[in-house]
């Protein structure tokens, strides 16, 4: 049998994978993308909470002290995400964290990343929104901010707002193709240039290739589309360059499993995992106060009752992003919607906190809830434990896995959360407008949809797994371009930063491909141009 070979092998098809896949394919390289999840498109996305629909394309991975929500399909998180597309504030790049010295590579500042942010905003593209785009829920946050003396902004989104129906089913995938997921830009453009995207291919290991001219051999198993168990099918592809982009809970596991074959990986692989400092709270809004204090009313006469209406993220306040403020005190407060799958986590303020009579009463006011996300400065305190036998975690069911990551917030992270909680209360509880309660940690511990940092870039080999060009230290031609590379929490939603860093990493990846004899065109345009 002839060995399977490719020039560039990309593992994972989210932001970190799709972007290099496009540029390398458009440049003329043979590109193969191995993606663990299935391939789905608008017609497959159902507006339904029936098990067997959304949980085929999105996973909850429960670790010790943390649960991560992540995409599992061609397009990765971009298919199920809420498309809030924000640049990280300048101070983020200057963070010192618990280590006491600058964590980002010297070459990287906000100004240095801005040209790459520009490209991504154009490629997806990102829409600057205005007040008529802000949902009722976002409007309540904005009006409450204003009343409390704060500013509030409509949030830019990778959504075509002219075709968006404001249905609020973004977690299930957009059946109107209004969300600019990677299925609509980088991935089809990569395929137009010959990239081979293989869904239901789960990578297990990356080892040195014995074939001359090839650096790495990537081992995969093919998954059963109905239960995601492994089938008998398995294979190996030899590649000149490998781009690992399996997400911040997938990438470190593949690397650690491969470590013995690769002659070791940097100690920082599987350490410094961050949940982006995510903290979700529910404000139980008093409808009468929303009318009398905020002066709000809808065409049908109600004041708010708008939780399920609109896009999941429409407004945020940037007032707590003061660059001069000390670390662990800065955060964005953002309005967000989760489907009732997460209702269990909401506290009711009574005792017991998250179940029983008080909680059921609160459910009856569900339409008047306002769900809020604080993205804070955490401590990158997560670590990965023993490597599971296959994949990134032990799959218990479609949509549910047992992960090996541990995250126990340090006192600094707790302090950051407390500050965000206090600020949120000052805004949302002023004059009894609402009752604010963070999600209960009893049922799922800390929940994040923004895993980061498990194989981060940096200048210090002791605390970073990758060079500032996203190459794994000591392993020429092996790159990591997903959320794992982001060295700190960002105080904003991370997709745009992950994408901008991936754009920036492309030149280095192309350089290694050229070293290996792959002839590449320069000046590849943005996808679709």
């Amino acid at each position: 049998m002839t060995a399977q070979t490719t020039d560039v092998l990309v593992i994972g098809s989210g932001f970190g994978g799709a972007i290099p896949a496009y540029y390398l394919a458009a440049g003329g390289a043979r590109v193969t993308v191995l993606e663990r999840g299935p391939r789905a498109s608008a017609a497959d996305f159902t507006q339904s909470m029936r098990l067997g629909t959304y949980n085929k394309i999105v996973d909850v991975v429960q670790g010790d002290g943390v649960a991560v929500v992540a995409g599992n399909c061609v397009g990765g998180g971009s298919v199920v995400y809420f498309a809030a597309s924000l640049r990280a504030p300048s101070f983020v790049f200057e963070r010192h964290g618990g280590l006491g010295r600058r964590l980002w590579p010297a070459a990287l500042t906000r100004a240095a990343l801005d040209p790459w942010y520009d490209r991504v905003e154009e490629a997806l593209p990102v829409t600057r929104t205005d007040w008529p785009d802000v949902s009722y829920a976002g409007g309540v946050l904005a009006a409450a901010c204003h009343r409390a003396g704060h500013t509030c902004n409509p949030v830019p989104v990778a959504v075509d707002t002219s075709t968006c129906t404001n249905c609020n089913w973004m977690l299930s995938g957009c059946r109107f193709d209004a969300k600019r997921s990677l299925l609509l830009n980088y991935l089809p453009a990569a395929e137009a240039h010959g990239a081979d995207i293989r869904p239901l291919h789960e990578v297990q290991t990356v080892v040195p290739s014995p074939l001359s001219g090839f650096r790495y051999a990537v081992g995969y198993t093919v998954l059963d589309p109905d239960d995601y168990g492994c089938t008998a099918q398995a294979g190996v592809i030899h590649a000149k360059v490998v781009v690992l982009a399996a997400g911040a809970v997938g990438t470190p596991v593949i690397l650690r499993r491969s470590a013995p074959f690769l002659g070791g990986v940097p100690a920082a692989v599987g350490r410094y995992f961050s949940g982006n400092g995510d903290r979700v709270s529910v404000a139980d809004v008093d409808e009468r106060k929303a009318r009398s204090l905020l002066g709000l009313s809808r065409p049908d006469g109600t004041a708010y009752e708008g939780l399920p209406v609109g896009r999941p993220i429409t407004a945020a306040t940037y007032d707590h992003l003061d660059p001069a403020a000390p670390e662990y005190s800065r955060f964005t407060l953002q309005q967000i919607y989760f489907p009732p799958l997460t209702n269990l986590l909401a506290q009711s303020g009574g005792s017991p906190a998250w179940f029983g009579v008080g909680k059921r009463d609160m459910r009856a006011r569900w339409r008047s809830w306002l769900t809020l996300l604080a993205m804070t400065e955490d401590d990158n305190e997560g670590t990965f434990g023993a490597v599971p036998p296959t994949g990134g975690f032990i799959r218990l069911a479609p949509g549910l896995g047992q992960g090996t990551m541990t995250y126990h917030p340090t006192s600094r992270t707790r302090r950051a959360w407390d500050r965000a909680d206090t600020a949120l209360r000052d805004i949302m509880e002023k004059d009894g407008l609402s009752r604010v309660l963070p999600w209960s940690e009893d049922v799922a511990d800390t929940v994040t949809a923004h895993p980061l940092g498990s194989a981060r870039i940096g200048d210090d080999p002791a605390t970073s797994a990758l060079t500032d060009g996203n190459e794994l230290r000591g392993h020429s031609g092996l790159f990591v371009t997903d959320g794992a590379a982001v060295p700190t929490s960002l105080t904003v939603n991370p997709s745009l930063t992950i994408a901008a860093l991936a754009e920036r990493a492309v030149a280095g990846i192309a350089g290694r491909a050229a070293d290996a004899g792959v002839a590449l065109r320069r000046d590849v345009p943005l996808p679709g141009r």
Partner: protein
Amino acid sequence: MDEPERRTVLKALVATLAGLSTGALETPEAAASTASESWTTQTLEAFADTLIPGERRFPGDMVVAGAVTGPGAVQAGVVGLLQSPRLPVAPLLPAIAALLDARAVAYAAVRLIWLSPARPPFVGLPFSDRTALVAGLFDPDDLDRPVWQVMSLLVGLAFDTAAPQDTAEALAQGHPGLTWLRFPEPGPDGLWRFPDFSYGRPLAVLHPDTTASGSPA
């Protein structure tokens, strides 16, 4: 529960989710009514009723404590969902119920609460004691906490999402949980769209320092 048993139970519980995903369960309610005699069913119903309480189903209902009026998790079909003979968790439910009943016996013993031998111990506890006992199951040091976490997830999914059913269909059939939330109705084609979704006017001053796209500068 010892370690291997706990692991088996957890695996089966999540396999229940998997079974639901592949459509193995079509009519949860039917299974519930035929099996509602057993102690296992009674104990699990009482557990679900503690998390999301509902009204008594008939005068003298001891299982559903009747802490409220209106529907709770039992009315939303949670136990039918767990008990379908077609799901792998069914054979383990007696062990889970027995675990809860053992906890109830221990709870009652230290508090000198008399439990009637005619009912499962957990069912014999007054609602406030069921509540206190269940809260304790989520103690971070409790070895069986993962079992109760997954059980709670299932209770929540049954009530808040009508998990085995398509959402539009469940709403059309008046699903008790979705109705309680006042989950919005879809349009005539079964899809949700919200033409009215915004107050449509400026509601706050913008941050002075933002980029052209609207990011923090």
